[in-house]
Structures are given as C-alpha cells and as structure tokens.
C-alpha cells in the first residue's frame, strides 16, 4: 500500500471505529457496568457475612468470572448486530459509496467494538481492584488474567463479526456461543488425541485441535485467584495466540464481506 492509501485507510477505519464506539456509548451499553459494580459490592457484602477466611478468594473468583461473562455477553450481542444493523438499515449504502474499502468497514467496526470492550474491562477491573485494595488484598496477580480475558474477548468479537456477515443476528449469536463453548472444550481434544491409536481418527483430532479456537489457553483465572502469576512464556504465547487467531477470523470476515451484495 502506498503512503497516501495507508493514511486514507487509517483515517477511514478510525472514523468508523469512533462512530461505532459512539453508538455503543449512546445505546447505554455501559449501564451494564453499573449493574456489575453493584452486583460485585452486593455479593461481596453477602459473602463476607456468610463465610470466614476465604472470602477474598471468592471475591476474586467472582470478580474475574463476572468480567469475563459480561465481556462475552457484550461481545456477542453487540458484535452480531453492529454489521447487520448497518446493512438492514441501509446505512452501509452511503458509507460504501465513499472512498472506503469494504475491509476498512469491518476493521473499523471491530476496532470500535474492541475499544468499547476495553473500556468495559478497564472499568470493571478497576472496580474489582478497588474493592480488593480496600480490603488490604493484593490485586496485581489478577492483571495477567484480566489481560488474557481481554484477548479472549477479542477472539469472541471476531467470531461475532464473522458470523454476522454470514447470517442474521439470532443465528450469528448462536454460532458465536457455539464457538465460545467449543473454544473452552478444545483442550480435551489434546487428551483424546493422546489416547487415540495411530490413524485417521488421530489425525482428525490433531487437525481439529489446531484449527478450533483454544480459549482455555487464555484462562489463567485459577492461578490468579490463588495469587500466583502465570509463566511469562505462557502469558506471551497465549496473548500472541489470541491476537493472531482474532486477526485470522477477521480476515475471513473481510473476505466474506468483500463478496457481499447489498440488495
């Protein structure tokens, strides 16, 4: 790409991302955060009344799970609708009549949603860390786990956008959930493969294990709750995996969208 073309691509993607971000903010998605904070505070109160000793662990566990669940729900439900809505309401007609390439559109939508998710994760993590700090607990060991949650969300969002270029939001949401669940079960293929005899079954296992998303690799919440840090190689490897996988899915989404007709 020539320099002016790259500048043009960048400014188009940024404009679309900004608009997507604005839409999400004005759609009051972030009220979810308020719900989250209240829930967390309420639950921690309740737990500190009920249990003795291990409530900090419970708060950490609950907090991280909540960040992950809220993030995934936002990624799926917003992700499947943002592209579809533009097609359905035909705003994409004028948008694509500008000197904007179709992949700029997908990239911009993705970047916009990812910024929303980033904001959500930051705010929710902030609330969780503040709560822990008030209780005199160390929250630093949670940060690697939170970073990997964000990369997991990046992968889920990419799937949501891919499926939304292929089908309607209902089905796209369903497929994205399937991808999410499968992603958390892929690790079992490794075990299965080890027990399989040589042959096509084993090859199939191998292929599936390589191709399917492995979201469990990005889950270090157990260690974080115990106060342990993941190995640096694991952190870097898992992050790189998340980014590359998300990009690969996004490239497929761009290819699908490139071929799309707007009737």
């Amino acid at each position, binding site marked *: 790409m020539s320099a002016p073309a790259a500048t043009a691509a960048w400014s188009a993607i940024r404009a679309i991302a900004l608009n997507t971000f604005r839409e999400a903010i004005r759609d009051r998605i972030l009220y979810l955060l308020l719900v989250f904070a209240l829930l967390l505070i309420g639950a921690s109160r309740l737990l500190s009344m009920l249990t003795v000793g291990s409530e900090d662990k419970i708060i950490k566990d609950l907090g991280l799970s909540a960040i992950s669940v809220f993030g995934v729900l936002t990624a799926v439900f917003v992700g499947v609708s943002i592209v579809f809505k533009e097609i359905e309401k035909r705003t994409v*007609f*004028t948008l694509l009549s500008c*000197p904007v*390439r179709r992949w700029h559109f997908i990239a911009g939508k993705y970047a916009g949603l990812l910024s929303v998710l980033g904001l959500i994760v930051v705010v929710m993590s902030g609330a969780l860390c503040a709560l822990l700090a008030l209780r005199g607990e160390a929250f630093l060991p949670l940060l690697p786990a939170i970073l990997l949650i964000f990369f997991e969300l990046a992968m889920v969002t990419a799937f949501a956008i891919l499926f939304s270029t292929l089908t309607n939001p209902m089905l796209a949401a369903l497929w994205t959930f399937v991808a999410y669940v499968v992603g958390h079960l892929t690790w079992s293929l490794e075990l299965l493969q080890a027990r399989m005899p040589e042959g096509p079954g084993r090859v199939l296992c191998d292929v599936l294990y390589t191709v399917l998303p492995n979201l469990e690799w990005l889950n270090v919440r157990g260690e974080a709750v115990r106060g342990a840090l993941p190995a640096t190689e694991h952190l870097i490897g898992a992050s790189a995996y998340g980014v590359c996988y998300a990009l690969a899915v996004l490239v497929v989404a761009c290819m699908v969208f490139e071929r799309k007709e707007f009737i």
Partner: protein
Amino acid sequence: MSVMSPRPESSGSRAADPGSAAIRIRGLAKAFPGHLGIGRKVALPGLDLDVPSGEIFGLLGPNGAGKTTTLKLLLGLLRPDAGEIEVFGLPHTAAEARARLGFLPENPYFYDYLTAEEFLDFYGRLHGLDASERGDRVQRALRRVGMEGRGKTPLRQCSKGMVQRVGLAQAIQHDPQLVILDEPMSGLDPIGRRQVRDLIQELKAEGKTVFFSSHILQDAELLCDRIAILEKGSLRFSGALRELLPSQIRGFEVTLRGANLENLPAEHLWAGEEETTLLVADAVELERLLAECRSRELLVVSIWQRRESLEDLFLRELGQEPGGES
C-alpha cells in the same frame, strides 16, 4: 488538502477531459437469483448509457424499471453479471472514482444516535477531509439544503424530509464532481422540492454532473438536460430533452361562453352547460376562431397553449404496450 481526492493531474491517472462522459455504462447486466434458482429475476438485460460531464441527467421509468439497481451497480453495492462501468474514465470501484462522487440513496436512513452535524462530520472523515475544513463544510452543506441552524438536531428527531436534506448535504459536502441521487425529491414538501431543484441547478452551474432517478416527471422536465427512460431494465428512450420535447406549440385549447356555440371552426373537446372547450391546431386557426367568436359575440374565457410535456412523452412511450412487445 484532501488525501482521498487526488486531482487527475496530480495523481497521474487518466484525466477526465472536459465534455467526456462522467459515467459510461456498457452492456450492464444483472439478474437477482431468487431462491434456489426459482424466481430468478432479470433486472437489467444489458444496458448502455452515457452521462456527459457537466449535465443534469434524469433516469426515469416506472416502478421496478431498474433505476435503483442501476445506481447500486454503479456504486458497487451490487456486482454486475456482465458489462462495465466507468466513472470519469476510471473503473467504478476505484477509490479515486469514489472520491469524486457523492451519493444519496432511496429513502435514506442514517444513524439516529448522531446529530446532523456529527453525521456530516463522520462522512467528512470518510472522505478524508481535514479537521480544519470539516467544520466549515458541514455548515455550508447544511445551509445549501435549507437546514441552517439545525445541525444540532439529533437525527432521531428529524422528519423524513429533514433526513432527506441531511442526506443531500452528505452527498455534496466534499464537493464531488458527480452527484448521484436516487429519488431526491421523494418525501419533500413543495418548498423542499423547489430547494432541491435549485440546488441541482446550482451544482450544474458549478460544473458538476448530476445523475438522478425520479418518478416526478415535472421535476425532471424542469431540470434535466438529458433523460433516459428505462422499462423492465431496457432503455426505451434516451436523449437531450431539448430534442425530445420540441418547444413548438401543439395547438390551443379555447374555452368559450355564449348562446350560439354550434358549428364553430374547431374540434370540440368538451361541452358544458354554458361553456365549451375547443381545440385548434395553430395560430392561423386560432385567429379564424376568434374572429368567428367576435362576430357571434361569444365570450372567450381562456386560451391555453398545448405543448408536449415529458409526461405526454413518457405515457406515449410506455403506453404502447400492455404486453405489446416481448
């Protein structure tokens, strides 16, 4: 300076020589597949069309003629089955071609969570306009479509006509050489229609090319240098309006009142209790009729020139069927 709209001389690409075609369409074909091959619908069997630079061109035709399909193909929203489209000598999908056009779709809808200004600013960005120019251009475009001072209105609160105007502002704010409008007058009140007509004429005065589709033949007749009439995807008629509608008078309708209205030297069109309307072919016959009126002491209520309107032409061209050809 805009990075997205290199002038032909600076980009080194093929320049659009003046007077050449702004849009050149050859053998453009499109069919909609239908479900599982059933209900396949040929929207355009093979269209050739040239829109000269600097003119106002009206794409006319009844519902379902293929106007929107043609425009969507032109903008790359649909892929042609066959044929080619050039915009200022460039392939229509080229970013340089896109940078030089503005588009308003049929029944537009825009992001309702934005205000008119925010929306136009977003499109300014998409056209690669600098932050410094965007503000001015937004205001100028709003002024040109009669939305001055209403830029802070959320699009959610805009009426259909206001949305249409904001859409028009979007199509012209980056100063494109070619403005493509799908049904620009629909949804507008008479004042709005007038404003849009004036705007289209201003664009022409600035040397822009305007290509629009419409059902409203009166507007097309007032505006267009050239028209094309599509029917079932085929070009029924195309040419300069001046040549298509010779300005000569095609007779006079004369309405008279009086007692003795029998055997006047003219064709009777309509007769009422006290008045009757007659048709004469030309000025000589008119003079003869009027002389007769004076001698019979009839009152001349009105004299009306008959010209061929675009509507007459349209109905004549399309009225030859039903089902006549094919």
